């Protein structure tokens, strides 16, 4: 029986050869870029950065979908499985700038590097973390973080290494000290002051 060629051939071949279901490869083909591949690898290694809730949701969603797609595939429903593969794209987490060749082989170290990378400001773009930024310097800093970790530094030592060169400014979460107390307490003070003001205002107005 002659098959109808609905999809571009390379893509269709991939789908038809789904025996082992190499999820990351399929995704790579869909997007034609390497950046997203590592996201899926995070799921495969079961190593999720703990604070990235979004990523965890994405992992769970992906697992359910993976099973569904596999069973559809077994029952010969190719089109349905393809639709689901495409649907899976919506479960993708935010794109990071980390390229696959930067990722460490050791998932524990890589998870620590992510933690640190998320907390460091890219000095070029200034409102992105070094993990989010495509700037050259961010790339260099990501490599530096990974080198320090591989050399046996603790997370704090790595952060110290960077802050001694670039100052507290590189920390997206600035430390609490004399220069930053307004930054941390400002909103609270403002809230208390306005609550106090309101209270005073209404007390004076009420006849009692």
């Amino acid at each position, binding site marked *: 029986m002659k098959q109808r060629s609905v999809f571009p051939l390379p893509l269709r071949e991939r789908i038809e050869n789904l025996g082992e279901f190499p999820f990351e490869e399929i995704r790579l083909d869909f997007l034609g870029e390497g950046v997203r591949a590592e996201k899926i690898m995070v799921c495969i290694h079961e190593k999720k950065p703990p604070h990235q809730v979004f990523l965890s949701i994405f992992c769970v969603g992906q697992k359910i979908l993976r099973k569904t797609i596999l069973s559809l595939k077994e029952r010969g429903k190719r089109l349905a499985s393809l639709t689901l593969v495409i649907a899976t794209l919506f479960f993708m987490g935010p794109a990071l700038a980390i390229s696959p060749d930067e990722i460490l082989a050791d998932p524990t170290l890589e998870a620590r590097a992510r933690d640190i990378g998320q907390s460091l400001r890219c*000095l070029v773009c*200034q409102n992105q973390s070094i993990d989010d930024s495509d700037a*050259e*310097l961010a790339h*260099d800093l990501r490599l530096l973080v990974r080198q320090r970790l591989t050399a046996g530094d603790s997370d704090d030592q790595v952060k110290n290494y960077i*802050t001694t*060169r*670039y*100052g507290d400014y590189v920390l997206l979460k600035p430390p609490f000290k004399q220069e930053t107390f307004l930054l941390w307490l400002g909103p609270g003070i403002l809230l208390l002051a306005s609550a106090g003001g309101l209270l005073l205002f209404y007390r004076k107005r009420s006849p009692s």
Partner: protein
Amino acid sequence: MRRLLFLLPIILFALLISFLGWRLILIARGDTPDLVPSVMINKPAPEFDLPSLLADKPGLSSKNLQGKVTVINFFASWCVPCRAEHPLLAALKNKGVVLAGIAYKNKRVEAVEWLSKMGDPYNRIALDAEGRTAIDFGVYGVPETYVVDKQGIIRFKQTGPLTPEIVADELLPLLKELNQ
């Protein structure tokens, strides 16, 4: 008095607007709030040892910084503002300033070609291909210019291109003071 209280939000709003406007005017006049203040000032220059960019000129290591006041200029052939500040560096050299150049993340051929076209004002010229020494200096873009005193302590940093005003008002007086 109580009747005028309704004016309070308007006054607060006007204050906010004038504050924001004031900041905008400052920026228009050349203030740079996105400039990251360097924490390296008054700290010893980092340890490094970089190979030379040119065959006939020495490279640069932290040992070379001892005993004389050195101006270190990070540049790259791909950097447009570097081109703008380049004539100022030649002028500095003519004044007898010890200038060291570090080509930041540059291909050797391109940096050499750029220097042969633009003129080479440097006493020492090194290549930081990986940009690691630059990170140790706290560089986050090119051009950046540092002044290191006789004890090897960083005394000054210019982020971005040098301007005639900065050279005349800040750099030269500081060099004079440090050379005494």
